[in-house]
């Protein structure tokens, strides 16, 4: 009788394992491939780049690793994401460091005074940033830290929960997404919008306040220090109010406290950004391909001038 019970138990466990394996396999097919396409390489350790770029969509649209790679011979990867808060960036870095050993991490200043851990109103953005991360202890830690709701945690650990309904949308792209250009994590937008240039306050005018984002920025810096990785803080220009630029300027305090470089591109006239041509049509928050090339070249030059590669 005991032996029979034991066999039943084993059969049940075996079936659960088989079902989980099938769900993971089905999940791999029905999952939205955006994250895997643009961020998959970094979490699989395909490239092991020397430089990683972290930040919001300002980074996602504004830094082209391929331009920096070809011009300055620096292997790099864009780990930016839509509305990607500093907390999410921190955890993306933790997971990226499992398979990569960069020499430099570049962190953009946008939303430095923000208190949210992720874009609460649009979970899809968080999916874009994190779906490509394979299931692991660090992914579990990330989900546990960022999300309170247990059903949300489940969704992010097992994307099949949310993507199973995509079965009716599956097309060829779901099977050969990896063949498509991923621009080393960057999004290329060639549209053009016309905007007015940002009114720049004085560079030492800054707005600094305690925030969750600052806390996680410090965690990024500490993590890099523990792993002998340099950190470069930057501010990518965008159509901004004076107040927002002052917030970005406050990165100087973080840089000073941690003995880091801060490259505030708002004030670098050599970049020669044209606000009537270098931003996307939909929003002045994102650089288009022309603007991103200028920023990337400037950033690459800064890295070469200040770091040993």
């Amino acid at each position, binding site marked *: 009788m005991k032996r029979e*019970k034991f066999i*039943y*138990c084993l*059969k049940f466990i075996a*079936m659960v394992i*088989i*079902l989980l394996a*099938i*769900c993971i396999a*089905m999940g791999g097919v*029905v999952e939205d491939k955006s994250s895997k396409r643009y961020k998959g390489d970094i979490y699989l350790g395909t490239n092991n780049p020397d430089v990683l770029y972290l930040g919001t969509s300002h980074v996602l649209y504004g830094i082209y690793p391929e331009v920096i790679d070809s011009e300055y011979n620096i292997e790099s990867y864009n780990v930016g994401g839509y509305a990607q808060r500093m907390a999410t960036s921190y955890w993306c870095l933790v997971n990226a460091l499992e398979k990569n050993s960069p020499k430099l991490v570049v962190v953009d200043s946008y939303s430095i005074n923000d208190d949210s851990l992720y874009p609460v109103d649009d979970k899809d953005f968080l999916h874009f940033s994190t779906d490509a991360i394979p299931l692991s202890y660090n992914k579990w830690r990330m989900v546990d830290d960022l999300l309170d709701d247990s*059903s*949300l945690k*489940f*969704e992010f650990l097992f994307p*099949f*929960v*949310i993507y*199973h*309904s995509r*079965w*009716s*949308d599956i097309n060829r792209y779901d099977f050969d997404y990896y063949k498509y250009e991923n621009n080393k994590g960057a999004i290329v937008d060639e549209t053009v919008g016309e905007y007015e240039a940002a009114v720049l306050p004085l560079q030492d005018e800054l707005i600094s306040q305690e925030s969750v984002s600052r806390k996680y920025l410090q965690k990024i810096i500490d993590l890099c220090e523990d792993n002998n990785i340099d950190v470069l803080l930057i501010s990518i220009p965008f159509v901004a109010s004076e107040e927002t630029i002052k917030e970005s300027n406050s990165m100087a305090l973080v840089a000073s406290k941690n003995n880091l470089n801060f490259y505030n591109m708002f004030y670098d006239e050599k970049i020669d950004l044209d606000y009537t041509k270098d931003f996307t049509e939909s929003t002045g928050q994102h650089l288009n391909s022309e603007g991103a090339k200028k920023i990337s070249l400037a950033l690459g030059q800064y890295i070469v001038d200040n770091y040993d590669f």
Partner: protein
Amino acid sequence: MIYTSLKFLIFYFIVVFLYYYFIKPMHRSYYLLFTSSVYYILYSSKYFLLLLCVLFVTFAFAYYIDKYKYDDHIKKWFLCTYLILIIFFLVVFKYNKLLNILFSVGVFEEKVLPLGISFYVFTAISYIVDIYSDKEKKESNALIFATHLMLFTKIAAGPIVKASDLIPQLKEEILFNKELFRKGYFRVIYGFGLKLIIADRAAIIINSIYDNFKSYNGLYLFVAACLYSIQIYCDFAGYSYIAIGLSNILGLEIKTNFNRPYLAQNAKDFWKRWHISLSTWLRDYIYIPLGGSRKGGARKKINIMITMLVSGVWHGNTLNYIVWGIFHGLWQILCPVKNSNSLIHRFLRVATNFIAITFGWVFFRMVNIYDAFYILFSIVDIRKWQYNIKITSLGLDRENIMLLICTIVLLFVIEYICEKKGSVLNKVIRLPGICRYFFIVTLVSLILLFGIWGPAYDSASFIYVDF
């Protein structure tokens, strides 16, 4: 904790694991009482004391009715007192809206319905009446009786199980029964399939149309009405299969609650197949005590109308349910009973029957009676139908609609095979081990892939839990 939630599944797995691995067979009934109490408290802690009150009162009255079984006068007094108390209790909680209207606003506060109230009250009534009529022996073990009334696998929305069906099983040692166990998990899987693949998918189209029904012509409304017939069947039958399956896994046999109702050829046949536990209860405790068919044709018709009216009122406290009950009463009285052997005639009878039931369900779905009539008149006025139907504008894409159609067809094919050749389940459970496991894994995978579940959807409760 609805049965389709992950929390319930985890709860249930823990219960079953402990049940078979740590609890001795002779103690399993008491363990079920404990787990049923835990379940009820987790789901509806506020009304657990009420359930205990019903339990205590029913047990006490059963004792006295049995004690005075040779004294008709006292026995009847106890029965009447009990019925008044228990029906008053049900009315206060279930019909508070109506009472507010009849007895002035604010006297009876609007309340959320206690979980399973309609079902456990009817279970209790059947127990007391059966003891009174000497059809049932009083159960002296209060804990066994409590397990029968509160069993968590059926308390939410039935089936309404007679004491004579369940209590003997609870009094004996509950041993592991391989065949019953297999039937159990296949029933659970089948129930999940009906609910998550068909019912909840159909609900998307139905809600799109009915939420804005005045914007749609008769053809759309007819499609929605037919789909609602499918939805309510798959939802409720799905629940019943799950409830019965969960009980089977625990080693308990519970009678089937649905027997392919849409293959019925007439009204009487339909009510022998639909929500069998309720229709049996209505027959045994309303229709037959009123005289049934024993007091002439006219009286029989009156008895049918009263019975169906009670059925309508049982479902809800708004006028539409009463109209639904009256509709079914009239339909039973007017509908010819003869079945047909000719395939075409049988098909036509089944189709006509389905249309009639569908019309009745419109009253069930639409709380406002005028809306229901509007929909029915729109359906019947075929001249105003417009045939350029854009079904993909109703919330489902083409692939999902194809899946819905295919699964509905498959459902009817399975039911037709069962009708002609006997239960498919008995054949499935006898498949060789490896085939059986492959079948289970395939079915569960398909339900996970095609089912309507997850954060993208509003977690749809079962329709009958609201009763």
